């Protein structure tokens, strides 16, 4: 039992991200409503972002903004210890990923509005019935 606790403390973040991802993926596959699926999609993407941010975390380190560097010139004098600052690279990647996810979300919402305009429903089973009603495609 005493061995387990450090393991949990060391890894729980990764496990929880997996759980979040499973929630999102499940919503994307199994939900009937298209908007619900979109929410699932977003949860899925944020879970991945959480994973990346977890990679970047470093114990006993502060946010990746160099202190005492505002002056510019005298910044060279101060020695910067890498262990004091959190890894900035995953943050950069995730900024990009957030942007991509909001772009996809916007386009998907626009598509959902278009689908609703045409079929007056967003439920997948009803949509399937409407598609049968239209008849074979041209």
């Amino acid at each position: 039992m005493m061995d387990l606790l450090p393991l949990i403390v060391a890894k729980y973040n990764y496990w929880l991200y997996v759980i979040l991802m499973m929630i999102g993926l499940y919503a994307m596959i199994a939900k009937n409503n298209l908007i619900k699926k979109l929410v699932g999609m977003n949860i899925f993407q944020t879970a991945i972002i959480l994973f990346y941010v977890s990679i970047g975390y470093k114990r006993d380190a502060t946010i990746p903004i160099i202190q005492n560097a505002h002056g510019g010139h005298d910044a060279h004098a101060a020695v910067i210890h890498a262990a004091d600052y959190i890894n900035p690279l995953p943050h950069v990647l995730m900024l990009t990923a957030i942007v991509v996810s909001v772009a996809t979300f916007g386009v998907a919402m626009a598509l959902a509005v278009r689908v609703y305009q045409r079929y007056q429903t967003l439920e997948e089973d009803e949509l399937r019935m409407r598609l049968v009603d239209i008849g074979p495609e041209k």
Partner: protein
Amino acid sequence: MNNYPALIVVAPLLAALFAGLAAWIEERLSYPIALVGLAVSMFSAFKVLMQVIDSGAIQYRMAGWAPPMGIEYRIDLLNAMVLLLVSGIAFLNLIASYKSVDQEINDRAGSFYTIYLLFVTGLLGVTATGDLFNLYVLIEITSLTSYAMVALGDRDRGPLASLNYVFIGVIGASFYLLGVGYLYMQTGSLNMADVANILSGIHGSSTVLVAFILCMIGIWIKMALFPLHVWLPNAYSYSPVAFARIVAPLMTKVMVYVMIRMMITVFGREYIFETLNLADAVVWLATIAIIAGAAMAISQKNLKKMLTYIIVCEIGYMVGGAWMGNQLGMTGAILHILNDALMTFALFLAVGNMVYKLKTVDLIDLKGLFGKMPWTMTGFVLAAFSIIGVPPTCGFFSKWYLILGAFEAGAYHFAAALVISSLLCAVLFFKIFEISFFEPMSKGHGESHASVAIEEAPVSMLVVSGLVSLSLIIAGLYSGTIVNTIILPFLK
């Protein structure tokens, strides 16, 4: 300073932005801007290819930072070939698109060209980049543009098909991103060459295995390997013709390129074929994909849909060849990227011409088409022969390498599937030839049967179609040269 590698990607991007501006100010300007951008891109790609053949791989440092810290473009023979292919096809298709865009999307042509150029930028960037995360961003550009285009095509079914495409596409891209995350966890780097270097020391790690599986699943979803292909037929057949003509030949092939790049450059052949024992399973999967693709193609009643299932089948060829684990199979797969892109492009150009005149391309509508559109049909026949694999055309040669590779690896089931699918394709295309050559024109057009007036597509479309169809034979005749100067030196 030699800036050609950057220009390949940046020229279409700049052109896209100027076209986007022009769409609001003077819409007629966007088409020439797009032409110039793609022409510059193609010229740069050609220059780079020549340079690479002469003096080996080129490295280009974005923002001047040395590779693991900054992003680099590393262009070797494989890259350079695919870059020229993509920019060339994009340029030719743009020439052919002028009329069909006029017909299909007349009021928003400027925005269409912008999206088109962004899509091409994405494909070129995916091909040129040497950075794992940069690849993800560019994959997203290509996907986002395709979502928009698919929804624009068919008014009734387009948006829904596109929304389903969004869900599947996002899952694919996210899996890839996760795979990169797992890799980053273990290596701390994102540069492909650097990652490969570090990976060679930690082959046994379970994290690397999971990273590999995630990346592959992500890429397979994007390239529509058989069980993951469900989005492709709808998405491609509902998009506007001008876009279908470029997305069908290029998107999947570029993804095959990405797979080969991941296999060879990032994970390394040693890891895949010696540490992992997945190769046999994947070749079986590819075999099933080939048979299933061909079988589904033969049951379709719409020409566009049919061709999309043929793409699914062709993906099976390339995946199988790449996973064969020997030089011949890989050669076949790479050669097939080139050939299949050309063949599919030729087929879709012909279909585009038909759609321009007929509006719908159900098989019944093709009756008597040889009389009505002789030149289009000639191009179609050439492309069809190439898909079937009739000798002087290029399709034959890549299949030949693939079969040789299959025999060498002892994958007889794959060779058998190849032959069977070729036969099925032959049946399918001869059915079309029969309908369009022997059956008389359907009535209701108000014309007598005796004199069928020739009603061809516009000259610009015909010329491109003819050029590409001819290139199929030329690529076939020069297959040996391509293999010896590009593919074999790359695989060494």
